[in-house]
């Protein structure tokens, strides 16, 4: 199977365009199987409840994650203020030994919508502190421009609220961001429910997909992970190949030159 081209995230070369989460699996074994099947090279994990142990005994769950050999993208899930998110990010940098941070600052506990104002505030502080910030944001163009101006090299607008599996609720807004920020690395984060949602985002020219629930809550997570790996590759290949423009009138795909006239004007 032809693979899409490799790409770079904050100077790190990656083959896979899928970032995958580590929550909600019914056992670590099922999580490991799913992550392997997804071929993801970046995994996200939340600091709050998957902490490397602060005692001298080893946290086995943490060891399992390390054994995967993936790049770690710690997140600030569950933070509701810039201050809280910055503090969590600093702890994550120390514990996981990475300056990557998926910055999540929520503004609404009902649909877990990012707070754009706190997100900008926290991004500014974290970039000054030397973090490589991956902001989880809404699909608002002006917010994305502000985050880009601050120095974010990656933006992760939502497809739909976290865990809803609604797919791309506003593909127009996502397409506008892609077109207006052509050099930005863009991932759709949250809301992906099925592989065709991921294909749609990749065909729009998004560089990658971050998801968790769509795989973890499938009846067979490893099989779904494989489906997403193939879908994301297909969507990227389609983007690289150049999707044909739409036409209003039908155009036959079989050449008509050698057909008798009576058939053409039948």
């Amino acid at each position, binding site marked *: 199977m032809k693979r899409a081209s490799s790409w770079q995230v904050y100077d790190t070369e990656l083959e896979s365009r899928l970032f995958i989460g580590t929550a909600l699996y*019914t*056992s*670590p*074994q*099922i999580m*490991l199987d799913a992550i392997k099947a997804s071929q993801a090279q970046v995994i996200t994990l939340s600091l709050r*409840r*998957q*902490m490397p*142990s602060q*005692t001298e*005994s080893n*946290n*086995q*769950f943490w060891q*399992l994650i390390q054994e995967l050999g993936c790049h770690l993208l710690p997140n600030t899930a569950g933070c509701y203020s810039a201050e809280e998110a910055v503090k969590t990010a600093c702890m994550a940098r120390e514990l996981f030994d990475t300056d990557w941070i998926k910055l999540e600052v929520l503004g609404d506990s009902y649909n877990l919508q990012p707070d754009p104002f706190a997100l900008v505030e926290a991004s500014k502080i974290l970039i000054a502190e030397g973090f490589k910030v991956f902001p989880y944001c809404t699909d608002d163009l002006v917010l994305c421009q502000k985050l880009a101006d601050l120095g974010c090299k990656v933006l992760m607008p939502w497809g739909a609220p976290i*865990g809803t599996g609604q797919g791309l609720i506003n593909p127009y807004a996502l397409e506008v961001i892609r077109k207006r920020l052509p050099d930005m690395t863009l991932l759709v984060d949250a809301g992906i429910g099925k592989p065709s949602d991921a294909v749609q985002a990749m065909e729009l020219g998004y560089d990658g997909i971050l998801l968790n629930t769509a795989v973890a*809550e499938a*009846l067979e997570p490893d099989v779904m992970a494989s489906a997403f790996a193939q879908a994301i590759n297909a969507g990227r290949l389609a983007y690289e190949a150049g999707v044909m423009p739409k036409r209003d009138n039908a155009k036959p795909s079989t050449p008509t030159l050698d057909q008798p006239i009576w058939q053409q004007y039948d």
Partner: protein
Amino acid sequence: MKQYLIIGSGLVGRLLAWRLISKGHQVSILSSDNKTGTGSAGFIAASMISPATEAVQTEQKVKHIGQVSADLWPKWLAELPEEVFYQDNGTLVIAHNGDESEMARFTRRAEHILSSDDYAELNQEELADKEPQLAQQFDKALFFDGESCLDNRHLYRILTTILTMSPFCDWQQCDEIDSISLTVLEQLSQHHFNCSNDVFDEVIDCRGNGAKADLLGLRSVRGEVIRVHAPEVDFKHAIRLMHPRYPMYLAPRPNNEYILGATVIESDDMSPVCVRSALELMSVLYSLHKGFAEARVLEMASHCRPAMKNNLPIIKRTNWGLQINGLYRHGYLFSPAVITDVLALLEDKVESIQFGELFDV
């Protein structure tokens, strides 16, 4: 008659010791916990025996192993000198209106993992028939017939009495045993039992979390519970509430006492219940029935369950003995089945082992 050394006196250790002396064997127990068992996860547990509802949240195998235990529990409890509270009225699974998608998810998994006669969908009238006080807040439920729970602390007390009184059991407390080897066993046997380790036909390690240094891949999963006395609430079923963060379970005890448990946290943190969990547990109680507002909080407790990567038990042979571990949050659901298989192994009746896939011997 054979002579066994059991290390650890949690649920598996004490149940196994009891089964062995019942069969006429001689048992020595060595444990760092007190004889009441307060350091054991099984002492804190809600002790629900729910093969089908647990299978929905994990995998099909859980139902098969759990069903064997569910059939054994009433028989084993009947052999005890006192009656232990055991209620097999079944489990009700419910969700608040705002969490209907969680209920839909549970139902979809139930359809995938179970057969349709494992459960029934109840409307409000049918729910009111089974659990009138619950039907005041909820208009539908899934019902899993035959699932049960027991009074674990009473069971612990009785087993402590049996084992300490029995002339065939010698139970000694010791310091924590981090790592076992033949040398360590020899020292321990000499020190605590005035004998050589060679005396024992088999050493069986039931230390749970304490066995981490000797069992690769063993990890801890933290859980938190609240125990209340609620005279205004009269539930007769185990209740599971689907919740976006994690499922909650309410297990009834005698005299209007209830245990609400939740939280599956990947951590070996043994510190007390945190405020956030306490708030969540208490608000869930209140949301189940307003009568919980006047309940008295008897206890809040946390513990860690020992688990392997697949969250299933393991029975493993080492050069110094047999290890039983990884019962995860399924101590009561799995231990009779696992112990029955271990007894078959010890008695060389390998052909009657039912869950060979759990064995690494």
